[in-house]
Every structure is written in structure tokens, then in C-alpha cells.
């Protein structure tokens, strides 16, 4: 009944050159095409960079001054908190709803596969278009959301989705969850297909019902995939800002502003490139922590 995971170890004892070659190819590619640009940004975050010297490679070194300036900006704490809430809600919702949808559409009923494919429509659209659509839906006066909710008597007055600082973060979170969940769903669905049929058959023969099968076979086998998806969703959400830019530009009063958008505003709207890069690096550090955590869980899995 146990998955053949423990047996994988046996293969690993050999160290085929080919596998190292595979690994090297991918890693080198990433280091060149993403690593170098990131180094550029990290270096910029410890320099004083304005329009005048942005084309130089050597600029005045200011140590952690940019970071201090970023930290002391009153909107920074708000933005940091917003990012944490935004990402947290997104991960929980996207993975949770994605899992539920994947399980549901894995059942065999007429039209299951077509319907599941249609859900991906939300992910295909450019962020600019999705942002505009949700901006219209959430508009206080002419938006469909308020229209439907008041008609159904679920709310008494119009909600100022995007113009009330206490609600705007919720609004952009809903929009982003809508945007990203199909992605999580499809990845979980792919993970579902990797679970060998025999396990289910054996369990059924042993008399396990659907719920038991779900809890004891599906979820444990799916766990590594779920964790990987959660990790990816965290990263994607941490860097997403096109959607928020299109919906609220981070306003009102930075209530829906997140780290990457603040970084963009500092660099390209106010021309303080060093500080913008420093803010971007904050995200980097947070994700580094998440990544290390993820890898730790993998170590446990291989030992278990």
C-alpha cells in the first residue's frame, strides 16, 4: 500500500553524468537570464541612483541608506502588511479552491473535461484586461457587483469596493484569486493523474469509502504537489502588480499597494531608483525565506 517513494533512494545511489548535465543546463540558463538581472537590481539597491547616473555602472555606494529610507517611509509599513495579507489570502484561497475544483472535475460526469478547460479562460487574459473588467465590476455606481448584491438584498447600500481604503485590498484580492485559481487547479489536477490507479483499487477492495480514499490516499500522495503549488502561488502573488495597477494603482492612500508596485512607483514615477530597488529586494528576502522553508520540507519528505 505504501507508495514506492522510499524505493526511489535506490536509484539515487548511482550518479549518472547525464542527470548532472540535465541539471546544469537548466541552472545555467536560469542564472544567466534571471540571475544576472537580479544582481543588477541588488547592486542598484545599495547605490544612489538618479536619472543622471542611471546609465553609469559605477555609482555612489551608500550602503543600506536606501533600505533605511524605504523603511522610514510611512507608506512602507502599510505596504508590507498589505503584501502579507494579500499573499496569505491568495495562497490559502487559490490552493484550497483549486484543490476542490480539481477533485470535483476529476470525477467522471458528462462534460467534466470541457468545463475544466473553460475555467482556464480567466488565466488567458492579459492582466490589463482582467484589471479593467474587475474595476468595472467593482465600480460603486455602475458596477455589476453592487447591482447584483443590492438586487439580491445581500447588502443594503452600495459598497465602495475600490474607493474605500478599508475594502480596496479585499477587492483586489478577490480579483487576483479569480485570476490565479485556474492555474493552481490545473496543476493540482495534473498531480492527481500521477497517483497510481492500483492504490485506489486496493483501497476499495479493502473496503475504504470515498472519503477515506480521499484522506488516506489522495491527499498524502498529493501533498508534495500541493506544497509546490503553494510555493509557486506565493511567489507569483508576491510579484504580481499589473492587476492592482490596473484596478487601483495601489490606492486609495496605499491601502491596496503592495511591495512590487511600490518599487515600481519609486523607480519609474518618482525616479528614486536605488530606493525602488531596495524595496524590490525586500520581496526577494521574504521569498528567500519561503524557498528555504520549502526545501526543508522536501528534506523531511525524502527521509520519511
Amino acid at each position, binding site marked *: 500500500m505504501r507508495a514506492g517513494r522510499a524505493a526511489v533512494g535506490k536509484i539515487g545511489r548511482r550518479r549518472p553524468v547525464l542527470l548532472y548535465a540535465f541539471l546544469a543546463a537548466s541552472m545555467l540558463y536560469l542564472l544567466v537570464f534571471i540571475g544576472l538581472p537580479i544582481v543588477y537590481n541588488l547592486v542598484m539597491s545599495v547605490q544612489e541612483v538618479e536619472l543622471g547616473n542611471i546609465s553609469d555602472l559605477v555609482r555612489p555606494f551608500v550602503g543600506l541608506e536606501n533600505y533605511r529610507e524605504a523603511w522610514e517611509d510611512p507608506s512602507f509599513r502599510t505596504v508590507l502588511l498589505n503584501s502579507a495579507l494579500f499573499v496569505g489570502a491568495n495562497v490559502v484561497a487559490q490552493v484550497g479552491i483549486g484543490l476542490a475544483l480539481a477533485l470535483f472535475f476529476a470525477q467522471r460526469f458528462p462534460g467534466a*473535461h470541457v*468545463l475544466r478547460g473553460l475555467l482556464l479562460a480567466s488565466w488567458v487574459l492579459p492582466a490589463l484586461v482582467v484589471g479593467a473588467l474587475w474595476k468595472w465590476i467593482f465600480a460603486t455606481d455602475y458596477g455589476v457587483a453592487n447591482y447584483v448584491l443590492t438586487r439580491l438584498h445581500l447588502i443594503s447600500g452600495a459598497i465602495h469596493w475600490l474607493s474605500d481604503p478599508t475594502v480596496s485590498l479585499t477587492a483586489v484580492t478577490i480579483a487576483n484569486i479569480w485570476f490565479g485559481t485556474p492555474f493552481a487547479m490545473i496543476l493540482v489536477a495534473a498531480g492527481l493523474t500521477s497517483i497510481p490507479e492500483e492504490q485506489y483499487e486496493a483501497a476499495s477492495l479493502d473496503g475504504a469509502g470515498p472519503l477515506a480514499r480521499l484522506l488516506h490516499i489522495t491527499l498524502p500522495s498529493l501533498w508534495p504537489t500541493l506544497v509546490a503549488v503553494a510555493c509557486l502561488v506565493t511567489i507569483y502573488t508576491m510579484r504580481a502588480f499589473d492587476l492592482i495597477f490596473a484596478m487601483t494603482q495601489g490606492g486609495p492612500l496605499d491601502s491596496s499597494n503592495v511591495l512590487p508596485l511600490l518599487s515600481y512607483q519609486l523607480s519609474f514615477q518618482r525616479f528614486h531608483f536605488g530606493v525602488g530597488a531596495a524595496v524590490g529586494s525586500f520581496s526577494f528576502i521574504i521569498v528567500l525565506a519561503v524557498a528555504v522553508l520549502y526545501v526543508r520540507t522536501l528534506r523531511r519528505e525524502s527521509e520519511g
Partner: protein
Amino acid sequence: MMRSLRRRIGSRGMRILCSAIGITIVVCYLFPVYWMFASSVKTSAEIFANPPSIIPSHPTLAAFRQVFESENVVRYMRNSLAIAIPVTVVTLLLGASGSYALSRLRTRLIGVALVLALILQIFPDALLATPMFIMFRHVGLLNTFTGVVLATSAKSLAFALVILRPMYRQVPAEIEEASRVDGCGTWQTFWRIVLPIMRVPLIVVGVLSFVQAYGQFVYPLTLLSKQELQPATVGIYSFIGAEYADWDRVMAFASIFAIPVLILFLLLQRKIVAGLTAGALK
């Protein structure tokens, strides 16, 4: 017993109920997409009217007509595909092999490599575009599809590595052991045995990479200054001017943009199901 016990839902009634629930979920979920189509046949003024018109009052194809007339829509779509298809290929090539290695090797390097693959994705394109531009200018890859493909593939590669690894680990070791016993080398095992089992996740990753590349905006905008090379994501901005946007045309363009990909999904969904019923894992 050839029945798939996991999937069998009792009665016919249950199956129909599930279909009904499924349709309801999809209809509700896709409401904003409907809104996009509806907006493309409304006038600009009607889009912003209060109360909102859920059914367009005087649907018109004027926006579509204007989009086709004013912009070289075919060229934009062609450019989008010229970027998206190679990106998918590169991602699958490097991703399928790299994540296999990540799942089978047992060195500390794996941890490092995974952390790298994850953190390298954190920076938004807008911040990476500038150094990317400098790099490509030095090697003469500006205003080429190759440059954009290389830049975009890095994004999907990182995610492919992370997501395929746990799925590779699902593949039972006995299968690989068996092929080893038969005398197959690493490559043979990988190519003949493991990959076919991973067909479904690979298709999924391929499709997702395709969609991500198809929707790329920042890199094509920065790395391709020649109008003839620009893909649809940049083209959509020709309806968004300095001070205002022709939203009906933007939505019409977006509708045209989305349809090929949706068709792609629907076609590939069948393949996935076919793979399942054929008992790919046996």
C-alpha cells in the same frame, strides 16, 4: 476488473447532478469573461452606464470591425505565436530534463538548485527588463524573437522545474528499476519509460508555459521596438491612448486574443482524458 473504481459515480442521477453543478460553477466563475465579450459589443458610453446593462442593449460589431481595419491583427497574433511556441519548446526541453534530474539526484545541490529556481522568479519583469536589455544589446539580440524567447523561457522554466519535480517522484521506482534490470541506460529509461508516464503533467506544463508566454507584455515591449515584431499584448495598447482608452475595442481585441488559446485548451483536454482512460500508468 477494468472499471476505474475511483471515478465511478453511482447512479446516472448523480452524474447529471454533477454536470449541473459543474455548469453552474463555470457559468458563475466565467462571468467576468462574459462581461468582456458583452463590453466588446457595447458602445464605450454603455460600458459605463448606471444601471449596468447585463445584456447589451444594442449589440454592435463596430468595435470588432474597427479592430480588424485599424490594426494588423493577423500580424500581432502571428508574432504572439512566434514567441509562445518556441518558449514552450525550450521550457519543455530544459524543464522536463532538469526536473527529472532534480527528482532523482540526491545531493545537497538539489536544495540549492530549488531555492535558486524559486527565488529567481521573485522579481517582476518591469525591474528585470532594464538589465535584460543591456545584456541583449551586447550580444545583438535586440529586436529579435530569439531574445524575447530566451528571456520569457527563463520564467516558465523556473516554474516547470519546481512543479514537475514532485510529479516525477510519484513515478514508482520499480518501473525504473525494471528498465535498469533490462539493461537500459539513464537516457533510455528517461526517454522510453519515464517520459511517457509523465505525459499528462508535461502537457499541462507545456500549455501553461504557452499561455504565460502568449500573455507576455514587458519583455516584448522593451526588447522589440520595431512595430512589425510586436505581439498582441503590446498591440492591445494601440487602443489605449495617452489620456483615454477605447474600451470597446480593447475588449474586442482581447476577445480575439483569447479565443485561439481557449480552443487549444479544449482540444488538449481531450488528450488528457484519453491518456487517463488508456491506463497510462499501467
